[in-house]
């Protein structure tokens, strides 16, 4: 990064952190600029990496007319902005959903089966015992087909709730550490690159 880029990035970082004090115009301006820049970046990336090779290479150079089908389907989605023709945009959307559903059903079963198979483990340690009990009781918690009256499923679902709470707690803890990592990354930049203190 050049010195100017470092200064701009530093000011933008500090500007965003002003939100921690309270909402303010500096934060708002930077936030909107970020959304704008990111959208422009994403559009440019998709154009250069996906659309341009498909149109210039496949369609024009190699004469692959089949590329026209996804291009037309893609263009049809934008017709939703024209009220009189917005119904046309449903066709590519339905094609997309149908293709996605079929694709997922064809390929996603294998990882699911592998995960189910991995849960059939011998109970020879505290960990394996907890895994088996956790899976069974959590499944019991999500059993809504009819009212459960037998004691095994009734108390099992209660235990399952505690397993879910522990899992959510672990996820929350990991999220906190992840956010700390983000703060640390920015602080490293501010201290070492912008202010050139330490390191």
């Amino acid at each position, binding site marked *: 990064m050049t010195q100017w880029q470092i200064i701009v990035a530093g000011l933008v970082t500090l500007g965003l952190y002003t939100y*921690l*004090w309270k909402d303010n115009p500096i934060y708002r301006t930077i936030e909107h600029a970020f959304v704008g820049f990111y959208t422009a*970046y*994403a559009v440019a*990336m*998709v154009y*250069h*990496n*996906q659309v*341009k*090779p*498909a149109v210039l*290479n*496949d369609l024009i150079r190699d004469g692959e007319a089949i590329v026209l089908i996804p291009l037309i389907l893609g263009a049809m989605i934008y017709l939703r902005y024209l009220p009189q023709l917005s119904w046309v945009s449903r066709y590519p959307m339905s094609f997309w959903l149908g293709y996605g559903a079929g*694709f*997922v059903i064809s*390929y*996603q079963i*294998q*990882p*699911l089966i*592998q*995960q189910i*198979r*991995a849960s059939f483990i011998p109970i020879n340690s505290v960990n394996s015992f907890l*895994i088996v009990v956790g899976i069974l009781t959590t499944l019991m918690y999500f059993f809504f087909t009819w009212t459960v009256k037998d004691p095994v499923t009734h108390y099992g679902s209660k235990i399952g709730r505690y397993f879910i709470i522990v*899992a959510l707690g*672990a*996820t929350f803890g*990991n*999220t*906190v*550490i*992840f956010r*700390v*990592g*983000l*703060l*640390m*990354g920015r*602080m*490293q930049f501010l*201290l070492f690159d912008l202010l050139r*203190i*330490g390191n």
Partner: protein
Amino acid sequence: MTFWRKFLNMDRRIMWGAMFLIVAAVLLRPIGLPMQIGSTTEKFYDFVEDIPRGSIVWVEAGFGAGNLPEVGPQIRTFLIQAYRRDLRLIMSSTGVEGSQLGQEMFEDIKSQFFPDLEYGVDFLNVGYRPGTMIYARALADDVMSATGGVDIFGRSLADFPLASEVPRLHGDYVAVLAHFVGHDPPPDEWFAAVGQPGNIPIISGTPQMAVPQFIPFLEAGIIKANIPGMRGAAEYESLVGVLGSATAGQDVTSSMVLFITILVIMANVGYILTRKDTSS
């Protein structure tokens, strides 16, 4: 107002300020807390060490700037370990920013450690493509067609020797798929589209937030090894012997975890004590 009531009603900006001060202080004056290498990271390191020299590894750089402090050191250290073992890497990205960030990391590694590396021979970046699972499946059928036949710079893949060695993403041509992502997508999509049908083992690096999401896949053998978050990145840096930003951040993470734990305990104690006061 009692101490506990004042504590519970504390202006949150005091907490933010304390967090900033702790992070800055520990970064400037590291404590040097001891670090034990976790078995998960060690498994990842050993897995890469066992890849035959000269093999081609497909690297999915599906992360972004938001995950860079955690996934950045992981992928950077992976590049160093891979090139020490003379592996050759092809990088793809299903995250908008991943391809460019990955390219910058390669340039950085090249200039710092391996000046003899040659783009197109030791490393190839096929750029960003949307549609994770569908793209992965297309790569398994035909790399040229899936990538539009061009690299990140728009140059023809036919000009690069590395591309000609991998006509499709399959175990016959690629030894391992190294999957570095943010929290999404989980590795089951790559496993379903490429790993399982193409018989390619998958290893991964994830931010801390995604660790609970990835552990079931690790337990089920869908991924063979994983680097978990910043902590894992620091352990990995230590194993490879290249100390970087993750190692520097370990003290910060530990200090912040301690600080947050103290706050949580104090808040709970305060809540219990003040609840008694209110009820009486």
